[in-house]
C-alpha cells in the first residue's frame, strides 16, 4: 500500500543561508513558491529547480528540492534535456531579465516554441543585480546605469510580448508584493501542460529601487494594474469604475463605467487567438493600466511527448539501438589535450584554484560588509521580545480532548500550548483545530486525547525574531498566534495578531514606514 505524506511549507525550506539583500523582492517569490508546492500533491523528490546566473538564479539553493545552478542563460536547455530524460519530473526554470533575455534570450525563445512541459519564472527587476547595476534588456529607454551613464539608447524588451511572439501556450504576469495573486499564478502555471511562462515584477532594492512602484504602491496600484480574469470584462480602478474597450484598429481605450455599459467592454479570454494576449502585453504605463494575471492558456502538443513517441516508434520498427556500434560505425578520431602537444595553456599556472573560480567572474564584487542598509528600520529591527508578549495558556500534552476544550473555555482564549514532561513544546491546540477536527465530528471528548487533535508541526519564533517576521508568517499562513520559544524549545510567550496590530498603530507615524 502506498502512503501519501502530507507536505508543508517547511519541507521546502532548505538549510542554506539566504544571501539576498535585505528587502529584495526575491524573498517574497521564494516564500510563495514554498507555500504553493506542498499544495500541488506532487512528491518532493519529483521537483527540480534549474537556474542560470544572477541574484535570482540563487533560488535553487533555498528550495529543499533537487536543483541545478547552471550556466548563464542556459537553464532552459538543461531543463529541456532533463524533462526528456525523465518526463515525470516537475521542472521549474528560474531566471532573471538579464539571464533569460540577454545571454539566454535565444534559449528562452526555443524552449517556449517547443512547448516543453515545464514552468519558467522570470524575475524582472529591469537591471543586472548580481553584477552591481548595469542595464538589462528590460531597462527602459533612457535608463542611466553604470554601463549606460548617459542613458540607454535602445528600446527595451517586454518579456510577455517576446514569449507570446514565440507562441507560448501559457503566459502570465504577477508582482512580488501581490503575494496571494502570485501564489494563484504559480499554481496555474504548475497545472498547465506545456511551457508556462510567468513574469514577476521584482524589486531590486539596491540597484533599481522603485522601478515597479506604480504597481506596488497601495495608493496607486489599483489605478495602474488591470487584473485579468478569464471570461470577465476588463474593469479596473480602486472603485472599479473604469474599463477597457476596443476602439477601431484593434486599439484598447480606457472608458468610464459611468458612460459605457459593462457589456460593451472587452472581455478576457485566455483561449483567444494570441493577438489578444499580445495586445494586452503592449498595454503599458503611463498610457494604460498594466495587465497582471493569465494572458493566455491554450493546449498544444507537448515536446517531450512527441519526442518519446518517435523514439518508441523507431524502436518498434528497427529494434533497440546499440550506442557502441553507433560510435564505431563511422570515421572516428581522438583529440589530445593541448598541453600534451606542448603548445597550449599549462593547467595550474595562472588559472585560479577551482574553489575561487566563481568569484573571479568579471565585474562580480562582494558588497562591503555593512554597506547595505536594511530596507526599513523598526519593523525589521524591533524584536518580538520588545512587544513584551504574555505567556500562553499551557497544558500537558497527555490531557484528554474534553479537558483541553474545558480549559480553553475557562480561560476564554483560542490558543493553547501543549508541553511534554520536560516542558518542551510539542503541539498547539486552537479554535481552528476545534473547527477543523473536533466540532460536530467527535461525540465523546473525554475518551479522546488532545494529542490526536492538536497541530503537531508548529511554526515558532524566538524572542529575537523581528516583528516583520511574525507579520510575514501571519500573512503567509493566516496564523493568529505564534508561540515564542527559547533555545531549548520551551515556550516563553505567545504573540497574537492583536499585539502586532497595536505595535504598528503606535509606531508607524510619518516617514517611518514604507
Amino acid at each position, binding site marked *: 500500500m502506498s502512503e501519501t505524506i502530507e507536505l508543508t511549507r517547511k519541507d521546502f525550506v532548505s538549510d542554506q543561508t539566504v*544571501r539576498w539583500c535585505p528587502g529584495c523582492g526575491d524573498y517574497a517569490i521564494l516564500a510563495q513558491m514554498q507555500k504553493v508546492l506542498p499544495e500541488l500533491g506532487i512528491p518532493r523528490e519529483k521537483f527540480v529547480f534549474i537556474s542560470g*546566473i544572477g541574484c535570482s538564479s540563487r533560488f535553487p539553493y*533555498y528550495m529543499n528540492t533537487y536543483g541545478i545552478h547552471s550556466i548563464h542563460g542556459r537553464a532552459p536547455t538543461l531543463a529541456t534535456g532533463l524533462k526528456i530524460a525523465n518526463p515525470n519530473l516537475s521542472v521549474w526554470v528560474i531566471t532573471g531579465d538579464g539571464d533569460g533575455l540577454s545571454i539566454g534570450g535565444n534559449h528562452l525563445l526555443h524552449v517556449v516554441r517547443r512547448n516543453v512541459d515545464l514552468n519558467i519564472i522570470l524575475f524582472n527587476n529591469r537591471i543586472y543585480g548580481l553584477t552591481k547595476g548595469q542595464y538589462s534588456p528590460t531597462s527602459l529607454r533612457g535608463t542611466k546605469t553604470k554601463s549606460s551613464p548617459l542613458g540607454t539608447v535602445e528600446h527595451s524588451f517586454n518579456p510577455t510580448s517576446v514569449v507570446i511572439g514565440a507562441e507560448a501556450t501559457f503566459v502570465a504576469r504577477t508582482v512580488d508584493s501581490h503575494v496571494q495573486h502570485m501564489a494563484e499564478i504559480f499554481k496555474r502555471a504548475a497545472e498547465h501542460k506545456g511551457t508556462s511562462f510567468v513574469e514577476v515584477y521584482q524589486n531590486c532594492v539596491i540597484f533599481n529601487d522603485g522601478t515597479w512602484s506604480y504597481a506596488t504602491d497601495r495608493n496607486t496600484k489599483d489605478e495602474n494594474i488591470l487584473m485579468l480574469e478569464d471570461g470577465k470584462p476588463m474593469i479596473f480602478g480602486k472603485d472599479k469604475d473604469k474599463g477597457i474597450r476596443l476602439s477601431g484598429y484593434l486599439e484598447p481605450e480606457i472608458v468610464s463605467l459611468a458612460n459605457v455599459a459593462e457589456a460593451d467592454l472587452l472581455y478576457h479570454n485566455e483561449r483567444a487567438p494570441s493577438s489578444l494576449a499580445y495586445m494586452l502585453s503592449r498595454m503599458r504605463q503611463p498610457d494604460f493600466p498594466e495587465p497582471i494575471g493569465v494572458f493566455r492558456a491554450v493546449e498544444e502538443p507537448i515536446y517531450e511527448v512527441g519526442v518519446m513517441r518517435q523514439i518508441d516508434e523507431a524502436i518498434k520498427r528497427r529494434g533497440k539501438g546499440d550506442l557502441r556500434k553507433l560510435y564505431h560505425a563511422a570515421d572516428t578520431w581522438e583529440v589530445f589535450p593541448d598541453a600534451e602537444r606542448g603548445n597550449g595553456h599549462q593547467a595550474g599556472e595562472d588559472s585560479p584554484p577551482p574553489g575561487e573560480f566563481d568569484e573571479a567572474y568579471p565585474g562580480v564584487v562582494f558588497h562591503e560588509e555593512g554597506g547595505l542598509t536594511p530596507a526599513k528600520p523598526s519593523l525589521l529591527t524591533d524584536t518580538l521580545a520588545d512587544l513584551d508578549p504574555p505567556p500562553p495558556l499551557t497544558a500537558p500534552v497527555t490531557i484528554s480532548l474534553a479537558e483541553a476544550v474545558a480549559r480553553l473555555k475557562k480561560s476564554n482564549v483560542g490558543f493553547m500550548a501543549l508541553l511534554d514532561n520536560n516542558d518542551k513544546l510539542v503541539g498547539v491546540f486552537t479554535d481552528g483545530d476545534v*473547527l477543523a477536527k473536533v466540532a460536530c465530528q467527535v461525540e465523546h471528548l473525554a475518551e479522546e486525547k488532545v494529542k490526536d487533535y492538536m497541530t503537531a508541526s508548529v511554526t515558532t519564533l524566538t524572542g529575537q525574531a523581528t516583528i516583520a517576521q511574525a507579520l*510575514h508568517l501571519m500573512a503567509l499562513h493566516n496564523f493568529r498566534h505564534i508561540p515564542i520559544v527559547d533555545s531549548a524549545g520551551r515556550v516563553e510567550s505567545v504573540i497574537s495578531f492583536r499585539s502586532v496590530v497595536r505595535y504598528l498603530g503606535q509606531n508607524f507615524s510619518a516617514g517611518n514606514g514604507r
Partner: protein
Amino acid sequence: MSLEQDLQLEQVQHLDLKNFTTVEIGTSVKKTVEKMRVENRHCAIIVDEGELVGIFTDRDILRKVVDARETWDLPIDDLMTSTPLTVQAKDRADMALALMDFKHFRNVPVLDDEGKVIGNLTHQAIIKYLSDRFPESVYNLPPNPEQATRQRIGA
C-alpha cells in the same frame, strides 16, 4: 503619511473582506459547522433571503457546540448572535478597527447602501492590509529568521 492617517482615509470596502461563509437561517448547527470547515472560514454569516440576521463564529463553536452534542441538530438561529453590530462599506477603516479593538470583536459584517452583506471584517483583512502597506519589510523575508545575511553574494 502615518498609518493612522492612512486608515482614516481608507474605506472598509477596500480591505480584503472575503473571509466568511453564508448560511441560510434554519440550517442545522452541524451543517453550518461543516460548511465553515469545508470553506475554511472562521465565521458564518446567517441570512434570511439575503438579509443579515446573525453571525456564528469559531468562538461560538468552542463555547456552545463542541462539547454539547444536544446542540448539533438545532437550527443555527438558536445559537447565533442575532442582529450583530455591522459597519457600512464606505465607513472609515480606522473607526471599524477601533470598534473591533474596543469590543474584542473578531468578525464584523460589512453592509452596502442597500443593507446587503458584502463582506466580513476580520483579523486576516487587517494583517493583509498592514502587510501590503509594508511589503518590503514583511513579504521580502527569508523563510526562517536565522537564514538571513548581511553579506550579499556574487555568482
